[in-house]
């Protein structure tokens, strides 16, 4: 019997149909993948299974019995627990409080904090999250927040665990730890649903696969064994798609570097950072989550103080005061990894969100911007990225996660900058659009722009970069020319990172 099943589910949002006759059945003791392009309806289906959304039509069965879910609590009562695509942590509460949010230990009606911190430890250890349970959740990185939520879902001891893109913003190493946990859970009889755009993961981890296309189930719980990546893509897209292996390098090493860091140190602890990006070049900053890549980028934009070294743009030393200065004086753009917190204005339209960087170009007499001209400017970029929306005036908050990410990146592709720092640009983006983003970034580079790519996805790095800098603990520990040989690079880089950490840990212990 299926642990949970969704039958003939329909769901429409203001005339926009997200699910049409979708079917999904997960057996106990199995890991089941749910894949599909951005906007295919995966998150909506999970929300229907957890009582967040009420389906317009269709049945939900838990353990073979039809149930009506009035809310998340109902679903939990039936043993169905989920980690949603967007983070759901209370930033001002501690890690332990967030973890045990639904079942805080009490003594005499009051919260028992000592016990809470104690009980949190094993769950944190379980997902390999090395943070103080007393720390505020807002001090965690995006990836740490992700792990915390997984720990929370596990702590409910659910018999059905639904994970909506849990690996989108964690590295392969952290993902490997997670997969170990999921396999243990499966062997203990839990039904696990796993959503991901990383198809290698899906094929390596899952027992069965369901594919959604335009809200419809096109592959229904087929055996994963024997399936190939290309088969999945064909099912998701509806036709076969070709992908490039890697980018043709076009950097001009003889030109003056667009960006050069010389022995840069920051207040956040970066030390002796040297890097240079030539016009036409794509340089990747690879490392584990927490290596300090995003912080370095933020310091470059003036959001953190430099305590040593020199930053040169186009050969001349510069001081960048803030992001406004960075964009308008130095023509540097930055795509944040945190699309909801730092990227999007969720209550505003797609046109407005993409258009921010082009207003100055569109401005007419007295500072007025006509919507027509704005639509003309942003429409093609949105179309190129394949943003799935009801129109340019749809609220961004209503788009699916991957489509929100596309809007975030599209803003900077529309803007006219010389140096683009892209921080995890393809988080949650489906394979076809990823490829389209790579092509667009390549076009920018070919037009003489410089790109600094921060990514935790090594296959992305190998696909795009000319050179790969490996960062660990706020230092650059190695530099590689991209040979295009994924297996070899991956092995070497992992060794380097492990070695660097082995050096760091005793150093800390003595401090």
């Amino acid at each position, binding site marked *: 019997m299926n642990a949970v099943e969704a039958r003939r589910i329909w769901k429409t949002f203001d005339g926009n149909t997200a699910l049409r006759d979708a079917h999904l059945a997960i057996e106990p003791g199995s890991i089941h993948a749910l894949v599909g392009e951005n906007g295919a309806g995966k998150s909506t289906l999970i929300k229907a299974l957890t009582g967040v959304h009420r389906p317009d039509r269709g049945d939900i069965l838990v353990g073979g019995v039809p149930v009506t879910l009035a809310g998340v609590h109902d679903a939990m009562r039936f043993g169905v627990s989920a980690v949603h*695509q*967007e*983070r*759901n*942590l209370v*930033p001002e509460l501690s890690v332990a409080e967030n973890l045990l949010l639904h079942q805080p230990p009490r003594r005499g009606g009051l919260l028992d904090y000592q016990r809470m911190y104690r009980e949190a430890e094993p769950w944190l250890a379980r997902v390999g999250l090395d943070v103080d349970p007393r720390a505020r*959740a*807002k*001090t*965690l*990185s*995006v*990836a740490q*927040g*992700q792990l915390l939520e997984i720990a929370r879902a596990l702590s409910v001891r659910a018999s059905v665990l639904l994970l909506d*893109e849990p690996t*989108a*913003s964690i590295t392969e190493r952290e993902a490997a730890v997670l997969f170990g946990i999921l396999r243990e859970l499966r062997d203990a009889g839990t039904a696990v649903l796993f959503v991901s755009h990383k198809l290698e993961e899906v094929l390596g981890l899952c027992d069965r696969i369901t594919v959604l296309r335009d809200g419809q189930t096109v592959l229904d719980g087929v055996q994963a064994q024997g399936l190939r990546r290309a088969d999945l893509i064909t099912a998701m897209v509806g036709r076969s798609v070709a992908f490039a292996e890697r980018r043709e390098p076009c950097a001009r090493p003889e030109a003056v570097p667009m960006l050069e860091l010389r022995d840069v140190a920051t207040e956040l602890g970066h030390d002796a950072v040297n890097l240079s990006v030539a016009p036409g070049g794509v340089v990747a900053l690879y490392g584990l989550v927490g290596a300090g890549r995003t912080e370095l980028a933020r310091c470059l934009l003036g959001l953190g103080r430099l305590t040593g070294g020199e930053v040169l743009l186009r050969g001349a030393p510069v001081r960048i005061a*803030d*992001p*406004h200065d*960075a*964009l*308008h004086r130095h023509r540097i*753009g930055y795509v*944040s*990894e945190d*699309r*909801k*917190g*730092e*990227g*999007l*204005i*969720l*209550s*505003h*339209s797609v046109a*407005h969100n993409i258009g*921010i*960087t082009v*207003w*100055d170009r569109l401005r007419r007499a007295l*500072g*007025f*911007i*006509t*919507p027509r001209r704005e639509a003309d400017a942003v429409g093609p970029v949105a179309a190129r990225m394949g943003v799935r929306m*009801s*129109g*340019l*005036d749809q*609220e961004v908050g209503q788009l699916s*996660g991957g489509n*929100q*990410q596309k809007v975030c990146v599209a*803003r900077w592709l529309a803007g006219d900058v010389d140096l683009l720092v892209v921080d*995890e640009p393809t*988080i*949650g983006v489906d394979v076809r659009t990823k490829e389209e983003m790579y092509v667009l970034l390549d076009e920018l580079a070919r037009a003489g722009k410089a790109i600094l790519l921060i990514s935790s996805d090594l296959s992305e790095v190998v696909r795009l970069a000319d050179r790969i800098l490996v960062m660990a603990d706020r230092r650059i520990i190695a530099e590689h020319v991209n040979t295009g040989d994924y297996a070899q690079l991956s092995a070497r880089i992992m060794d380097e990172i492990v070695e660097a950490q082995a050096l760091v840990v005793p150093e800390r212990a003595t401090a």
Partner: protein
Amino acid sequence: MSVRPSDARRGTSPWVPLLVVVAIGCAIMAPLNRQFLTASNGYVILASAGLLCVIGLAQVVVLSVGEFSLAIGGIGALSGVAMGYLLVERGAPLAVAVVVALAVGLAAGLVNGLLVAYSGVHGFVITLASGGAFTGLALGITETQPYNGLPEALTVFGTGRAGFVPYLAFATVALSLAAAAFFRWHRLGRLLLTVGGNREAAALSGLSPVRAVVAAHALSGLLAGAAGVMAAAQLHEANASVGAEWVITSFTVAIIGGTSLAGGVVSIGGLLFAGVILALIKDALVMLDVNPLWVTLTQGVLILAAVFLGRSSGWRAVRRPAAPRAVSLEGAAS
């Protein structure tokens, strides 16, 4: 006219239910009092609404960027008194006096904006203090005696009418249209809404939140100044205590109208209806011989009703917490 940039598609505009409220209110009042549906009462309501809307507009502009102002009444009083002083004590020409009054409002708002943006002290404290200071200044200038004998051109503007439409209401409509166009099509209006919608994102996109906050307070001051001039014209005197209730009024009109407290979403059309609703209620209570003190209670109840009833429409945003500042967790990962 709910203005988040181009959202024509949004299903429920906040002012559709408001229109229903207005209609129901009229239907209830009409049989209760024969005076209610007369042209002269229509004039009374619209004249009162005309001023309420401009007061609300002054708040909407600061709310758009995710801030608020408790100094609107103080600025309005100071502007009105500055105009009265120039006209009555100095015999200045009307045009000069009005321009100076508006400039005083703009300057007072600018001071607020600069203090809020650069001091790091919360806007609540700054505008609470500065509002008191502006009121005090106005009281000092008038020595608590209102300026009477304002020029006829001004008082005709304040109390004259075409049919049942007060001249004053034309000014309100003009200001509202300008505000709607500003938020929808002007670069600065976009800046305010974007910063209000997500300050971090705006900053990282190269917009300047500091500039937005300063501009919002300055424009709010200008509108409060305009409200001060309108109030003086309506009352036929420039009075330092005129703005005593403007702060609660401004929030009432803005929130009922569907402007988000969290910033990023404003509704000018909703504001106009909210102004009319509030004026209707005030008028109805007077007609029914209810003690005017109850009007304040009604305002409070209306705000609560607006927030609760509006969950499904534009008011949703009221409950949405502002984007976290430092490190955002709600973010990214998909």
